[in-house]
């Protein structure tokens, strides 16, 4: 399902002394099935932007369409939007409330009014996708799990709604390196399997570089740059100017080329850099 955003502006506390312009004239389109990453400094408006995509926040001005539904239209039913667009919030584990993992994951699908067997099927499938063993976890209380496991339960709760657009707001914040990789691989896996549109909000360039089809850069409420990772991460100076970096691989490659090495134009994947270096270094040590 495609996403179209036109001239979206959002002002918090409009008209009061402390109003904040969180988004200013943001426009973009995401074709169906694309994997998009949104990166930006703290407070640049990423969370505000994605909360518009499933109608949780209403724009101050501007229009948003998901597929052929204009969700900024007042007559649109919220359930129809929520069915299509799944949103995983920052620190989603704080929204768990049920007695068992199974019941918690069932909350979303049940709200969609699905029959019991279908709900059950989806719970099993989403638990498998996020890497939680059904037999082991289904009947446990979500509150006795570790942070990483809780996060998986919360994400499963949204995946189980089988949205055609899946949005994740910094799903790896505050996790250990292993869970961090697991969650990202899981998102990739979901993307591959369901062919849905993914919007991933992240602070981490390395995560984004290898996975996203396109990268959107936000700065102080504006969409300042968008394009394929190769194009966007070429602009090291611009990115560091707005408080962002480039992926480590790109950084190393750039520093090597400053020292006179003939490095291919842009390197995003660690593997590519390693094979490039391995070719040039004498075997058995420098």
């Amino acid at each position, binding site marked *: 399902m495609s996403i179209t955003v036109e001239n979206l502006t959002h002002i918090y506390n409009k008209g009061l002394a402390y109003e904040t312009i969180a988004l200013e004239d943001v426009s973009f389109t995401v074709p169906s099935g694309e994997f998009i990453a949104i990166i930006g400094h703290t407070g640049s408006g990423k969370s505000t932007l994605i909360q518009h995509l499933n109608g949780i926040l209403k724009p101050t001005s501007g229009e948003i369409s998901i597929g052929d539904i204009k969700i900024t239209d007042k007559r649109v039913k919220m359930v129809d939007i929520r069915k299509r667009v799944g949103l995983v919030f920052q620190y989603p584990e704080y929204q768990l409330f049920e007695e068992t993992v199974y019941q918690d994951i069932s*909350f979303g699908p049940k709200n969609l009014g699905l029959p019991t067997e279908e709900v059950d099927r989806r719970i099993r499938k989403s638990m498998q996708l996020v890497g939680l063993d059904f037999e082991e976890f289904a009947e446990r209380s979500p509150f006795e799990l570790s942070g990483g496991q809780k996060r998986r339960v919360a994400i499963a709760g949204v995946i189980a709604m089988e949205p055609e657009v899946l949005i994740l707001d910094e799903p790896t914040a505050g996790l250990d390196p292993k869970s961090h990789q697991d969650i990202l691989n899981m998102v990739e896996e979901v993307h591959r399997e369901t062919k849905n549109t993914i919007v991933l909000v992240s602070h981490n360039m390395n995560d984004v570089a290898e996975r996203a089809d396109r990268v959107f850069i936000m700065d102080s409420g504006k969409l300042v740059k968008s394009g394929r990772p190769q194009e966007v991460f070429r602009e090291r100076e611009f990115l560091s100017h707005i408080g962002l970096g480039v992926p480590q691989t790109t950084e190393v490659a750039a520093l090597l080329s400053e020292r006179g090495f003939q490095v291919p134009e842009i390197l995003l994947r660690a593997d590519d850099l390693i094979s490039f270096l391995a070719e040039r270094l004498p075997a058995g040590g420098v």
Partner: protein
Amino acid sequence: MIRDITLGQYYPGYSIMHKIDPRLKIVAVMLYIASLFIVKDFMGYVVVVIGLATVTAISKVPLRFILRGLKPILIIIIFTFTLNMLMTKGEILWEWKFLHITKEGLYNAVFMALRLVFLILGSSLLTLTTKPIKLTDGIESLLKPLKRMGLPTHELAMMMTIALRFIPTLLEETDKIMKAQMARGADFETGSIFRRAKALIPILVPLFIGAFRIAQDLALAMEARCYRGGEGRTKLNALKLKRKDALAMVFIAVYLGIVILERIFLIGLDAKIIALLF
């Protein structure tokens, strides 16, 4: 949504009202509330409105923002208004079956509803222009005489500070949880009362867990910084009365004086004016 609640909320600003000693403001609000009960007719309300308008203008808090504080208690106001209007005996203006509206009832209803409105507006000005920390500093200082009688004033004030400090945090938390559950298709707005009450569970459970988490973190953080209670604690910004505070005192004295004089000498004048007009 939930952030619309302005009762007890602070409105940042740099007006004189924001800078006046909190103790003085607390006492002033108490005197103001007393004055509302001294006033017995609409002529008195003229004085109240002038006083309130002056203070509001000085505070630079937008009127729209102050009036929003009335929203949560609108039902109470309407309830009082209706009861007063229907329950007072006197000269009948309108009648239908067992219901009747009297001249005195109408007068009382408007009078009581206005008293409530003024009560809320006046006291919300206190919280709108005073930071919670300063407010509790003021309360602690005013309660000091009771310390001799064994009342743990510092601890009470600290509890109050913490409670006030975490109101916005909890509101924010509620807002976040509501949004998250809405994204999972939760519906808080339709259905019977029973269904709506049940719909609150997905909000309340995470909220309570969050509140306990915050409380625990805070207790740990305070202990880590060697907090031991009030004994021998000094303040970074000790409260001291300044010249503008003296001006404020004069203002309050004049206001109270006029209210009392009106009560003594002009009482009943409004009824005559109303009689002349209608």
